[in-house]
């Protein structure tokens, strides 16, 4: 059997690259979060560790590693450790199907800057993201603490409720594009316009739901400090806590990438094909464009966090079930009608 070593090498490099980049972005999201918070609150934020506090994430990480590792006496030890590991693994897995760029041509080989272009990419992401709730559930339950348990129950019901609306808003997009492959959706936007122009309501629902999925303010009820002493990771210390916090930032990064890919043209940028540059250069510029979009989304996540107060739990549920889902259904109906009208005329 002839094994394509170049293919294996390419994928290994790509996987480690994507993993490293998502960890790096997550690391610097913590720095960015503190800077955005401080700027919005008229402070200057971290500025001691390195230039503009750029070494702060390293200091935070180092601190977390040296903290005492505490496993509560009455906790379920196996599940207690499994929780943060699962949260982290699931957060890292979603990056596999996101197209980080077009193809590069290296020494006669065509390298696609996507780890796996599976034709059900969106379904894969949904499947993996809904696994993420197990990390939170297991952690909260295994801690044997009533506040952790309450928080994880909140998180689980919140994520399940908002996943419905998120899925429904995506179905409208899928009816329009006719494909589940994220790469193809991006390619369609490269030649047509960005999907956000055709699906503004769908995008809005998707955006709100991704805030809820990432447990970000105003939907951060699972880690409501004032009511639940910190939420599902209350009993966690050291790097296990770090994993939970880190997984949240990776999730934010991935959902920013997903939103950029699905609604804002992914790695495509305006006039990309009429510049007349070398294809490899266009690809690199495209990847840079994707990262700029992602950074804008990350800033938006943080901006919202430092603006809007947290919802009450019944408000959250009412918004999810009584507003988001009917809106998503209406959006689906309208899109369906238009698609049907277009195909018959």
């Amino acid at each position: 059997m002839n094994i394509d070593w170049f293919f294996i090498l390419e994928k290994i490099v790509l996987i480690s690259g994507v993993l490293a980049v998502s960890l790096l972005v997550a690391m610097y999201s913590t720095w960015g979060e503190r800077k955005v918070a401080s700027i919005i609150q008229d402070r200057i934020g971290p500025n001691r560790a390195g230039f503009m506090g750029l070494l702060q994430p390293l200091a935070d990480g180092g601190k977390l590693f040296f903290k005492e590792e505490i496993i509560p006496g009455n906790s379920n030890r196996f599940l207690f450790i499994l929780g943060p590991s699962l949260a982290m693994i699931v957060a890292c897995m979603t990056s596999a199907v996101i197209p980080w760029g077009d193809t590069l041509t290296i020494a006669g080989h065509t390298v696609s800057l996507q780890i796996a272009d599976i034709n059900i990419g969106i379904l894969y992401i949904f499947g993996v993201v809904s696994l993420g709730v197990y990390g939170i559930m297991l952690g909260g339950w295994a801690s044997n603490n009533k506040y952790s348990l309450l928080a994880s129950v909140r998180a689980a019901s919140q994520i399940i409720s908002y996943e419905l609306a998120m899925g429904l808003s995506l179905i409208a997009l899928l009816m329009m594009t006719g494909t589940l492959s994220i790469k193809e959706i991006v390619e369609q936007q490269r030649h047509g316009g960005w999907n956000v122009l055709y699906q503004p309501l769908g995008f809005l629902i998707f955006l709100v739901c991704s805030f809820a999925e990432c447990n970000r303010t105003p939907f951060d009820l699972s880690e409501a400090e004032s009511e639940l002493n910190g939420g599902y990771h209350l009993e966690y210390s050291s790097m296990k806590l770090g994993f939970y916090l880190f997984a949240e930032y990776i999730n934010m990064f991935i959902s920013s990438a997903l939103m950029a890919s699905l609604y804002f043209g992914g790695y495509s940028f305006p006039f990309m094909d009429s510049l007349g540059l070398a294809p490899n250069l266009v690809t690199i510029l495209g990847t840079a464009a994707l990262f700029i979009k992602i950074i804008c989304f990350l800033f938006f996540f943080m901006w919202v966090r430092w603006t809007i107060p947290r919802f009450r739990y019944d408000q959250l549920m009412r918004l999810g079930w009584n507003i988001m889902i009917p809106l998503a259904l209406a959006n689906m109906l309208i899109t369906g009608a238009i698609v049907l009208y277009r195909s018959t005329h």
Partner: protein
Amino acid sequence: MQALTSRARQVDRKPMTFIEKIYLWNIIKGMVITFKHIWKRKETVRYPEQKRAFSPVFRGLHILNRDAEGRENCTACGLCAVACPAEAITMEAAERKPGEEHLYREEKYAARYEINMLRCIFCGFCEEACPKDAIYLTETFAPANYKREGFIYGKPDLLIPAPGEKKQA
């Protein structure tokens, strides 16, 4: 009922309008407000490099004063210790020996004079109580220390240097 301030206002309990109910418009308004803060002046004082100016009546660390000839003013009368509401001041009196007239202004002086800076509330009552103008509060504050003992300030810490003390040394 009369309002306590001129800024008191009736709470608006009208039912929410449609715009308020969809919530999005108010979120956008709030986000515009927070975005504007990017250009606001930063309030942070970068402490070790920058220091905030104290008010002229700031009450900080104590000093024990000397008179014009460099003699200690304190006579260990104990009025400051009596006035102190936090009971932070202790002292031991001693009698001036012949030949020590250049060190102490009067016949009695404080052999030991201690202020516990962790107990002190910097009210300045000691300064007010002192009949001899011996104790004053300055515009500095006690620096950090690793041990509680380090916050008990004795005479060497409190006394201002005598005139010409540096020349002798």
